[in-house]
């Protein structure tokens, strides 16, 4: 009733190849786009932007990036925090070195720089796999954070060792600095998220994505049908790095405004994004969104319930939050190891027939 694909025939292969082949899905996608671009900006306030929407948008970009690497290409990475830091510092250096260039291009360029760094740290993947590769990327995490802490050039020799985002505008509207409007920063991040999602989807439904998935599922067979493992793996690292760099740049410049690298981009961040894609669903763009939403919303929700409704002291609630989030993650992984995206797929299967069981 609710979800129909009956009677939805395709007469061309391009119609069958589109992102949302089912009409209902497609309309829902348009509605979501409409609401997020033309409704939310008018009702958003500072609390909603900084507590929910900005972290969600930015983490979703990072999750898409990491999902390409881990979920699609099967190369485990624990270096996400470090790569986000590369994006942040690249953006900072570009913003201060070329103040006349629009920040939009700085963010894109920061993504490009991160892509290059990510490829460099991806080189060991040609030799090692699985846990060993994870450890190699972990080295990237610690090395990069150390580098940004210790080399003053990266933070322009500032006394505090922090980096601060200068004020920058897009079309005359401020998107970084202390005097930003909630709707402006929201829209700025949303544009990047939508762009990233569309690019990721296009890549994964085409030949590039097939090469990645072939490497993930069986690398020997991939090689025997003509996939060059070098270019396939490194392109996954590059694309993944590009998105993660963008998210790091936005996280620093638009969301936080001032960053101390060990605090903002530590190992916790790597695990957070990894949890997002595992909970959301490996190898699924929708899963990246779902996982980011889940891990951004859950703490906010718990805090509201524990502090707001039950009246607990804030610090007890904060500790309890860790407990609950941790427990939920474990329960989740046991009950549905393929993540929210799989739950969604199962729900769709069920809804195909509902309310008639046959």
């Amino acid at each position, binding site marked *: 009733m609710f979800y129909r694909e009956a009677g939805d025939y395709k007469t061309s292969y391009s119609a069958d190849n589109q992102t949302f082949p089912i009409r209902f899905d497609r309309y829902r996608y348009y509605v979501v786009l409409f609401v997020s671009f033309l409704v939310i900006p008018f009702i958003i306030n500072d609390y909603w932007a900084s507590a929910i929407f900005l972290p969600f948008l930015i983490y979703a970009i990072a999750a898409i990036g990491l999902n390409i690497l881990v979920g699609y290409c099967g190369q485990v990475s624990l270096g996400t925090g470090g790569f986000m830091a590369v994006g942040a510092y690249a953006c900072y250096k570009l913003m201060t070195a070329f103040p006349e260039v629009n920040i939009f291009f700085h963010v894109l360029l920061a993504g490009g720089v991160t892509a290059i760094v990510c490829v460099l740290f991806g080189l060991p993947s040609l030799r090692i796999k699985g846990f060993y590769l994870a450890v190699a990327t972990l080295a990237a995490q610690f090395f990069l954070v150390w580098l940004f802490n210790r080399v003053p050039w990266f933070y322009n020799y500032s006394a505090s060792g922090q980096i601060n985002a200068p004020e920058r505008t897009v079309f005359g509207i401020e998107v970084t600095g202390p005097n930003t409007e909630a709707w402006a920063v929201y829209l700025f991040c949303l544009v990047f998220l939508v762009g990233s999602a569309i690019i990721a989807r296009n*890549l994964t439904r*085409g*030949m590039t994505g097939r*090469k990645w998935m072939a490497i993930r599922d069986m690398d020997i067979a*991939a090689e*025997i*049908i*003509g*996939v060059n493992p070098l270019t396939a793996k490194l392109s996954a690292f590059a694309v993944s790095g590009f998105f993660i760099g963008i998210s790091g740049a936005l996280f620093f410049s638009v969301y936080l405004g001032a960053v101390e690298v060990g605090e903002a981009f530590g190992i916790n961040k790597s695990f957070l994004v990894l949890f997002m894609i595992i909970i959301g669903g490996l190898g699924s763009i929708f899963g990246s969104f779902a996982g980011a939403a889940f891990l951004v919303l859950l703490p906010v929700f718990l805090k509201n319930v524990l502090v707001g409704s039950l009246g607990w002291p804030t610090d007890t609630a904060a500790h309890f939050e860790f407990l609950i989030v941790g427990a939920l993650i474990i329960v989740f992984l046991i009950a549905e190891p393929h993540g929210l995206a799989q739950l969604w797929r199962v729900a769709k299967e069920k809804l195909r027939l509902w309310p008639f069981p046959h």
Partner: protein
Amino acid sequence: MSTQESYVTEDGRTIGPTVMEMKNITLRFGGVKAITDISFDIREGEIRAIIGPNGAGKSSMLNVISGFYVPQEGEVWYKGKKRPPMRPYQVAQQGIARTFQNIALFEGMTVLDNVMTGRIRQMTSGVFAQAIWKGKAEKEEVENREFVEKIIDFLEIQAIRKTPVGRLPYGLKKRVELARALAAEPSILLLDEPMAGMNVEEKEDMSRFILDMNDEFGTTIALIEHDMGVVMDLSDRVVVMDYGKKIGDGTPDEVRNNQEVIDAYLGVAHD
């Protein structure tokens, strides 16, 4: 009969000149000689079988052809040129496709995506074109999909097109793997025991597909198989190996009457 002249078989298929030639191949793993000084050729359009008892070196031979192993001695000649040692993906890009004894499909992908990966050689648009999904990338996707659908029709796997391969039974997986290899439009198709573990009906189906493939697409096929009935019926010429050495080469009839081959298969009394 020179190996360069074309001829027409009894059932009307044209067998062309030599497309691949193995010259004095020797392959060693440490002290073990897997293949010793073997030479044979594969001609365009023929079905060439490699048979032999277990451990005879048949699969090693196939792995030499597809680039997994580099032989210590000997040369591989392909389309009139000596082939330098190359990686398996380079061999694939030259137009040599293969299937595996134990299926090597991409379990997490749908049947359609699996078969589409076979078209890697034909799909050349860059990452940036694919990222925006316009122009060449989109056109190429549709054109190659058309070809792949032909293969899917041919192998009668239309109904499972969008099913993830991990959910399929064994016999269908074998067929999907064949479809993937065939989608590459290979100059030579290597089949490593295409009928292993199948029942009689499935074997009949598979034999029919192999013959039709050869007939309709003119695909050159080199196959390893244990079922003698199948081999003798399908193939134009047979190479027989035993303990890494070639003990027979010729038409099925010649091979069947070769004393050395009979000894290898049935055993010989030592006095």
